[in-house]
C-alpha cells in the first residue's frame, strides 16, 4: 500500500489515512504542535520543564517539545527523577543522558537518595511491612512532589509530561468505573493553571497521540528506547482497563479518540463543579500546599527515612 501523499510505501494507517515514513513523521510533529498551540500550552514567556524518564513516551515528548521550543525560542530543559531502582532507572537515566547530549537538551537529575535521604529500593520493605504502602504509592507521591518542587526551583512556569491518548482514556475509564468524577476533573490536556502559584501547571503535548503512534515515531527516528520494566510494577486495574480498551479500539477504530473528545466536552462542567473553594493550607515542614498539617511527601520522610546524625 502506498502513501496518500507520495509514491513511497505506507508504514502507517489510521482510519483510511495511509502515510510513508517521512509523511508520518511530519504528521506526528504537526499533531503535537497543533495540540501545544490549541491549548496554549506554552509561549516564549515560559520556561518549560520536561519531565523525562527515558521511556518511549518521555523521549517522544522530550524530542517534540524541544523541537518546538527551539523553533519558537522558548527556554526549556529536561528534569529526571532518579528514584533509585536498581536494574531499571539506572539504565533509563544513562539512555536519557545520551539522548539529551545528542539532541543538545539541558538535563537536570534529582535523586531520591539525595533529596529524600534514601533510594526507593532502600525503603521499599519498611514501607510495605510497617505502613502497608506499596512501592508505587511511595514512588508516585515523591515523584509528583519533587517534579513540582524542582521545576519551581529551576524557575519553570510549565511542566510537560508524556501522557498520551491511551493514558488519558484509561484514566477516564478507571475513574468512571469507580464513580470518581472528582478525579476526572483533574485530567485534561492542561491542569493546575489556576490553583496556586506553588504548583507548576502541567501540560500534555502527546494528548491526542496513541502509544502505537509513539512507538512508531521512536522506531522510525531510531531512538534508543529501553523496554526494561520497573520491577515494582503493579498495574492490575489499569492493565485490565487498558486491555479492554484495546479490544474495543480493535473492533471500533477511533474509540479512544472518541472517548477522550467526549470527555473534553464535559470537562469544563466537571472543573466548575469540583473547583477548590476552601483555601489551601501549607505543610508545616516544607511549606508546600497540602490538605492536612504535613504533606504526604514529608509524612513519608518521617516514616521511612533513618537520618544519620
Amino acid at each position, binding site marked *: 500500500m502506498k502513501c496518500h501523499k507520495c509514491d513511497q510505501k505506507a508504514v502507517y494507517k489510521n482510519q483510511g489515512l495511509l502515510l510513508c515514513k517521512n509523511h508520518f513523521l511530519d504528521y506526528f510533529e504537526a499533531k503535537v504542535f497543533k495540540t501545544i498551540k490549541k491549548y496554549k500550552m506554552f509561549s516564549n514567556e515560559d520556561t518549560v520543564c520536561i519531565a523525562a524518564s527515558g521511556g518511549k513516551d518521555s523521549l517522544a515528548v522530550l524530542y517534540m517539545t524541544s523541537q518546538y521550543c527551539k523553533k519558537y525560542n522558548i527556554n526549556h530543559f529536561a528534569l529526571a527523577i532518579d528514584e533509585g531502582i536498581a536494574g531499571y532507572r539506572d539504565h533509563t537515566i544513562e539512555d536519557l543522558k545520551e539522548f539529551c547530549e545528542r539532541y543538545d537538551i539541558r538535563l537536570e537529575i534529582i535523586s531520591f537518595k539525595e533529596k529524600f535521604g534514601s533510594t526507593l529500593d532502600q525503603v521499599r520493605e519498611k514501607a510495605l511491612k510497617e505502613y502497608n504502602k506499596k512501592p508505587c504509592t511511595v514512588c508516585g507521591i515523591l515523584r509528583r512532589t519533587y517534579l513540582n518542587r524542582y521545576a519551581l526551583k529551576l524557575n519553570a512556569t510549565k511542566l510537560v509530561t508524556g501522557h498520551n491518548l491511551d493514558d488519558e482514556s484509561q484514566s477516564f475509564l478507571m475513574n468512571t468505573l469507580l464513580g470518581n468524577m472528582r478525579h476526572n476533573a483533574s485530567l485534561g490536556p492542561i491542569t493546575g493553571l489556576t490553583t496556586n502559584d506553588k504548583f507548576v501547571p502541567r501540560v500534555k503535548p502527546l494528548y491526542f497521540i496513541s*502509544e*502505537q503512534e509513539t512507538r*512508531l515515531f521512536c522506531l522510525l527516528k531510531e531512538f534508543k528506547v529501553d523496554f526494561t520494566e520497573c520491577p515494582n510494577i503493579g498495574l492490575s486495574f*489499569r492493565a485490565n482497563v487498558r486491555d479492554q480498551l484495546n479490544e474495543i479500539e*480493535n473492533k471500533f*477504530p477511533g474509540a479512544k479518540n472518541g472517548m477522550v473528545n467526549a470527555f473534553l466536552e464535559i470537562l469544563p462542567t466537571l472543573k466548575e463543579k469540583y473547583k477548590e473553594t476552601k483555601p489551601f493550607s501549607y505543610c508545616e515542614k516544607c511549606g508546600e500546599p497540602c490538605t492536612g498539617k504535613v504533606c504526604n511527601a514529608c509524612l513519608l520522610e518521617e516514616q521511612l527515612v533513618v537520618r544519620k546524625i
Partner: protein
Amino acid sequence: MNIYIEKENKQLELDKECTGLELLKELKINPTTVLLVNNNEVVLPEEKLSKDSNIKILSVVSGG
C-alpha cells in the same frame, strides 16, 4: 517465516504465507497493540508476508 514476539521474548517458525492480520489473529495478538517489522522495515498488518519473511512483532503497550 521466522517470527520474534518481543513482549514474550519468544521466537518461532511458521511455514506459511499470509497477511500480517491473519498472522496476528492466529497468534491471538491484538493488532492495535503492536507494530510489525518485516526484514527490518515497518509493514502494515494488511500487507502480505512471504514464506521467507523475518518478522518482528513489537509491543507498543507500556507497563504491566
